[in-house]
C-alpha cells in the first residue's frame, strides 16, 4: 500500500535520504526509529506528498510520486492522518475547530462534524478544553489535539511523528492504546518515535534509519 523504491532526497546537494526502499502493508503497525536528524520526518513528508524524491518512487495507495497531479494531492491527504512533530495547530481557532477542520475540508455536514468531533475529543480527554485556543493548552494537550485531528477522518494510515514526545508515561500509554485500537479497526500506523519503552511494550515491526539510510 505504501512503497518506497530506491528513494533519494537531496537538499542543497546534501543527501537527506539515500536509496530508501520500504513497504508498509494495509493495516500494519510500524515503528520508525533512529537518531535525531536521521530522516524520519522526511520519510513521512514523502508519504503525504509534501516533498518529492529526486530519484526513486514513492507509491501511496494508487498514487505515485512520479505521476501524481497537483490537484490530486488534497484527496490523498484526506485519507492520511498526520500527527505533526510540531503539531501544526491553528492558533486562531479553538480546539474544536482545529479538529473539525479535517472534516470541513472534505465537505462533511455540520451536524455530523459536531457528533464526530465531540466523540474523539472525549476519547482524548479533551472535551473540557474544546473552546480553548492552542496556546492555552499544555504541550501534551496540544499533542493530543493533533492526534485527534489526525484520526478523525478515519484514514487508511496514520503517520504519527513523535506523538508522545511531550507526554508523561501514562498519557503516552493511553495514546499508544488509542493508536492500537485504531489499528485494530484496520488503519495502518507509521509512528516515528524515540520512546523505546513503548516499543518494548507494544511489539511491532520496526524500521531503523540512520543518516538517511535504512539499517
Amino acid at each position, binding site marked *: 500500500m505504501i512503497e518506497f523504491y530506491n528513494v533519494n532526497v537531496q537538499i542543497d546537494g546534501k543527501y537527506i535520504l539515500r536509496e530508501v526502499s520500504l513497504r508498509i502493508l494495509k493495516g500494519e503497525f510500524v515503528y520508525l526509529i533512529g537518531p535525531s536528524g536521521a530522516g524520519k520526518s522526511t520519510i513521512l513528508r514523502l508519504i*503525504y506528498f*509534501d516533498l518529492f524524491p529526486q530519484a526513486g518512487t514513492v507509491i501511496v495507495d494508487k498514487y505515485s510520486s512520479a505521476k501524481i497531479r497537483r*490537484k490530486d494531492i*488534497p*484527496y490523498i*491527504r*484526506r485519507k492520511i492522518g*498526520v500527527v*505533526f512533530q510540531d503539531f*501544526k*495547530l*491553528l*492558533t*486562531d*481557532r479553538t480546539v474544536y475547530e482545529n479538529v473539525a*477542520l*479535517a472534516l470541513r*475540508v*472534505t465537505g462533511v455536514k455540520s451536524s455530523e462534524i459536531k457528533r464526530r468531533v465531540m466523540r474523539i475529543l472525549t476519547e482524548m480527554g479533551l472535551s473540557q478544553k474544546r473552546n480553548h485556543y492552542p496556546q492555552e493548552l499544555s504541550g501534551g494537550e496540544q499533542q493530543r489535539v493533533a492526534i485527534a*485531528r489526525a484520526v478523525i*477522518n478515519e484514514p487508511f494510515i496514520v503517520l504519527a511523528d513523535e506523538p508522545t514526545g511531550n507526554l508523561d508515561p501514562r498519557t503516552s500509554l493511553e495514546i499508544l492504546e488509542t493508536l492500537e485500537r485504531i489499528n485494530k479497526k484496520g488503519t495502518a500506523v507509521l509512528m516515528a518515535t524515540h520512546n523505546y519503552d513503548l516499543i518494548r511494550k507494544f511489539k511491532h515491526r520496526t524500521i531503523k534509519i540512520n543518516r538517511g539510510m535504512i539499517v
Partner: protein
Amino acid sequence: MKRARLATVIAVTSVSLALLLIGLFGIFYLNMDRWIGRLRAKMEIEVFLDPTVKQEKIDQLRKSIQQIEGIESVQFISKEKAAKRFKQEFGQDIFDIIENNPLPPSFVIHLKKGYRTYMRVSAISGQLQKLDAVDEIVFQKQLLQIVDRYIQIVYLGTILIGLMITFIAFVLIYNTIRLTIYARKDIISIMRLVGATERFVRRPFVVEGMAQGLIGAAIASILLFYFIKFVKTFIYPYLATTPYLFLILLGLGWLLGMISSRLSVGKHLQNV
C-alpha cells in the same frame, strides 16, 4: 480569530480610504467639468448688422440664423440696447457726444452644447458672414482657442491623476489583502496539509476580499456623503454631485476586493 480581525480592520480601512480618495476626486472632476461647461455656455457670437437695416430684414435674418446647425438661441440687440452697453463700458453716454446713435444693431448668438469649440464656432461664423446685411462677426476667438487648448490639458491631466489614484488604490488594496493572506500563511499551509483543495482554501479569501471591498466602499460612501453635506452647508452650496458616484464606489470596491484578493491568493498559494 483575533488575528483575522485585525487584518480585516486594516484592509477595510485601506479600502475605504482609497475609495474615499477616488470619490473626492470624482466630485472634483464633476465640478470642474460643470464649471468648464458653464464657461463654454457663456461663449457668444456677436453679429453686427448694417446700421441702416430694416426691421423686415432683421426678422428674415433671425430665421436664417436659427436654421444654421448648432444655434441654440438668437437675441437681437437694437441700437438702443447697444447704446446702453456703450455707457456701461466707456462710462459715458453716447448721446452726450453725438446726437444720432451711431452704434450698429446686432444679434447675440448662443450655441448648442457640442458646438462650443473654436473649430465649430469658426465654421458657423463663416456661414453667418455670407448672410445679407451682416457687417462684421465678433466672438472671443483667442479665449476660445485658449479654452480649447488648455481644457484638453486639464482633462488629460485630470484623467491621468484619476487613473493614478485608482491604480494606487488598487495597489494598496492588493498589498493589504496580500499582507492579510500572508498573516494567515500558516493557516493556509496547514489547511492544505489536512487535505483542503485549492478551491476550498481560495474561496474564503475571495469572499472576504469582496466583502472587505464592499464594506470599505460603504464606509467611503458614508464619509463622502457627509463630506458633501459639510461642503454644501458651510462652504459651497452649489457643489455638483450625483448618486451614480456612490454606485460607482460600491462597484469599484467590490471589483477591487475581488480582483486583488483573487490575484493575491492565486499568487500566494504557489509559494506556500
